[in-house]
């Protein structure tokens, strides 16, 4: 019972940290661009503001438009409960493995794309089309990266990957793991809508992907979707951090170890956030038709990772 509550607690912790992560990345980017930038906790104020506003819906939209934010938020939160953030292995480890995580995230993307098509605007259609293209092309990379990881760690279940990697830390330096990490990092940029795939702060409709799909949303719906997007970024960062460098995760349930693990987790998130911010500042956004090239690079990296884990056993 206690462990079950802990699992929900991890998800809620991730939920609470997500806007902070988004704000932190934005703040670092601003500083790198010689601006002062908003404070790192600005997204919390934005969410509060959005929750206070009325919702205005297009007359063309249907019940799907109203239901989609809940489904997106719900599926992302469900994933957050399955991913190890401060404690592993989770008691609910047998509930969902990496494949389940990937497909639950696809559930959210599916409904977001449908919600983009519902109001019948060209922007929404364009955003949905581009988002589904990128999601479809990123799928083989994710699957192969999971394969590479699972081969090395002996399981597709997250908790077991963590325990196995903790047991032999040298695994983390094998070419299989490093290549899988690189591949997954590129996929993270693609799936969470970061440069060079999509610009999260653009206001030009023709350069939007994620923003274009949610153009018609307002009020609490928009708040739920933005929160879910931040949560998705945190989930991907947790996967990158805790599957490849699981040192620092609490393995016992004592309050001190949990607190330590919490701080280390925030540290890992901050590190990945800084890396992302630096990368986003350095590179320009890719044309949409160059994105498959980037994703092919990550696919080849994942393929190389699998080959090296496979054939060097």
């Amino acid at each position, binding site marked *: 019972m206690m462990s079950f509550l802990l699992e929900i607690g991890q998800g809620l912790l991730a939920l609470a940290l997500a806007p902070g992560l988004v704000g932190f990345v934005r703040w670092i980017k601003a500083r790198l661009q010689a601006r002062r930038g908003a404070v790192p906790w600005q997204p919390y104020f934005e969410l509060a503001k959005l929750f206070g506003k009325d*919702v205005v819906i*297009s007359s063309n939209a249907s019940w799907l438009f109203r239901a989609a934010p809940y489904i997106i938020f719900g599926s992302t939160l469900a994933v957050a409960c399955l991913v190890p953030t401060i404690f592993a292995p989770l008691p609910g480890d047998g509930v969902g493995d990496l494949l*389940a995580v990937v*497909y639950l995230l696809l559930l959210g993307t599916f409904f977001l*794309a449908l919600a983009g*098509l519902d109001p*019948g605007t060209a*922007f929404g259609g364009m955003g949905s089309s581009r988002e589904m293209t990128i999601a479809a092309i990123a799928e083989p990379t994710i699957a192969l990266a999971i394969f590479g990881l699972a081969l090395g760690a002996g399981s597709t279940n997250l908790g077991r990957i963590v325990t196995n990697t903790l047991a032999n830390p040298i695994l983390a330096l094998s070419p299989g793991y490093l290549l899988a990490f690189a591949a997954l990092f590129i996929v993270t940029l693609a799936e969470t809508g970061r440069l060079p795939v999509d610009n999260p702060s653009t206001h030009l409709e023709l350069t939007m992907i994620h923003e274009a799909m949610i153009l018609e949303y307002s009020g609490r719906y928009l708040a739920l979707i933005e929160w879910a997007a931040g949560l998705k970024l945190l989930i991907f960062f947790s996967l990158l951090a805790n599957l490849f460098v699981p040192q620092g995760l609490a393995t016992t349930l004592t309050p001190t170890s949990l607190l330590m693990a919490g701080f280390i987790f925030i540290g890992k998130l901050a590190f990945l956030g800084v890396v992302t911010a630096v990368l986003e500042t350095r590179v320009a956004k890719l044309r949409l038709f160059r994105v498959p090239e980037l994703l092919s690079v990550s696919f080849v990296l994942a393929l190389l990772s699998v080959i090296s884990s496979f054939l060097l056993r």
Partner: protein
Amino acid sequence: MIDTLFIGMILAYGFGASAALVFGRGSIGRWLVAVGSVLGAGAGLAIGIAVIAAGTPVEASIPGLFSFAGGLLVRLDSLGAFFLILIGLGAIPTALYGASYSKTYEDGRGSLRQLGLMLNLFLFSMSLVVMAGNIFTFLFAWECMSLTSYFLVITEANEPETLGAGSWYLAMAHISLVFLTILFLLLSGGDWSASFNSLRSGAAVLSSPLRNVLFVLALIGFGLKAGIVPLHVWLPLAHPVAPSHVSALMSGVLIKMGIYGLLRVVLDLLGGGPAWWGGVVLGVGSVSAVLGVLYALMEHDLKRLLAFHSVENIGIILIGIGAGLIFRSYGLITLALLGFIGGLYHTLNHAVFKGLLFLGAGSVLHATHTRNVEKMGGLIKSMPWTAFFFLIGAAAISALPPLNGFVSEWLVFQALLGGFQIPKPEMAIIMPLAVGMLALTSGLAAACFVKAFGITFLAIPRSPEAEQAHESSWSMRLGMGMFAVLCVALGVLPFAVVPQLSRVMTGLGGLPASPAAFSFNLTLQSPAAFGQMSPPIIALGLVVILGLIPVGMRIFRINQKRRVSATWACGQISQTPRMEYTATAFAEPLRRVFAQLFRPTKELSIDFHPDSKYFVQSIEYRSEILPWFERFLYRPLLEMFHFSARQVRRLQSGSLHLYLLYTSLALVLLLVVARWIK
């Protein structure tokens, strides 16, 4: 008890067939046909469940019938019983749907008598295929199945494309029959009356090259029916022109007969083979899956899109079966079982969600009288139930949890992930490639169904036909609803289904029975607990979270007001249907990414004003994707046939004397041959 059920099945189908003939047009006829089909399919379902529960095969024979070929022998084992259940689950909702759907044919567009008669005969012959116990029964039932389905396909014979599509279908079905005849001829060594039992024992002593030939024949013969690339061309032709409930049956059940045949011959009769058999099946499956979904993406005819998706899903099933065959040849029995179970589960799931999608497409066709997605839109408001069920089907086929597509793809993935245990690295390396291709197909399928559902049902109607759409009748909704419930049930309760599938595969090709190997309490798990997942808990978690979000929002006093207003669209003044995204535009990025695969042809003609070349009067742009098997395989083949036919036509001079000469020459030749060759 099974005997009574069997007699009941024959009677029910016979009743349905005769009701079609007697009552013809009119609602009584339609309903009696449906009742006959439902009862017959239900009897089949019950027989199947009984046989799987009992675990022992059931035999019955009528030696007097067709005694020159060994008599009519019925032998139902667990594998056949599973497919019988599949037929039943596919046919019952479809028949109910068809009762109202076929009302459109009352105005004479198609013969209701033929439809009802052939439907019942079709279902019965399919049941006979899976119950066949000797060569003759099997081939006889196979041919009946092809013929009856041909008549079903050409129901709407007045439409321009129907007869052409029907010819393609009939031709390919008969080519399949030829291959199967040769296969059984070689397998039985010329003994036409051999039963499957004797074939099985005889196959053990066949030489290895002969077994390889038999495998290739089986793959081509059954692959033609199943629809693997490049033998799939009849699928996107025949499925759209058939009445929608027939399309659902064909896509959901008929092509699975190919899978049944493949399993029966390759795994059961031949007892499995070397690893390259599995490798070929896996390769063919992967290629079919990827190409199927890529061509589906480019389609705007809703039913053609669904037909290409059937090709894709057959590919996924073959990936599972191929993996199973490979593992089996290396002695990795548990993994082999997992592969086969994944393939079988996907067979069942596909029948359910593809049936649902075709029925939904049928409702849309019924309401808007067009299959062209570009003319639809906004149907979610005029056809809410259909839209909801179609959405469930779309989510299921995109493998989204917690529905059934996700479970079977998870099982196939887990089987492929076990590939590292294969001792030979050259063979083992195709597993990750298959994983990549499987993941690509599921991503592309999700993209395709966002397009299909989004353009068809969402936003505003793009044409007057879409504006006038109305919801389908209650029996059509009932049919779709039954499938939707099955989608959810098969997705949330796999731990109940997987052990049964395990029993289905018992004893086939050396597979032992280990019913509890893949499920544990409420979870599914792969061997050595490599992967573990619990769909019911995920579903429960999702439902609870979705329920708690509004509650949480009320607790935190979040603003609940909602206003409806004009679409913002960045400050546009008005919104017309012309401003919506089209299906072509939606698929454009993917078309560009895979352009070297599609090789679309482009034609651009610009008309300039006669006085000045700086003013454009009109621009015509035409782009077409012709699948290259059609361009490089079928067109040359057809050219060859036409050429040889033209040569043969020279013999037909029209002169009566010449024909008489031919006949007399043939007679003389025969006499000479009979006299001098003893």
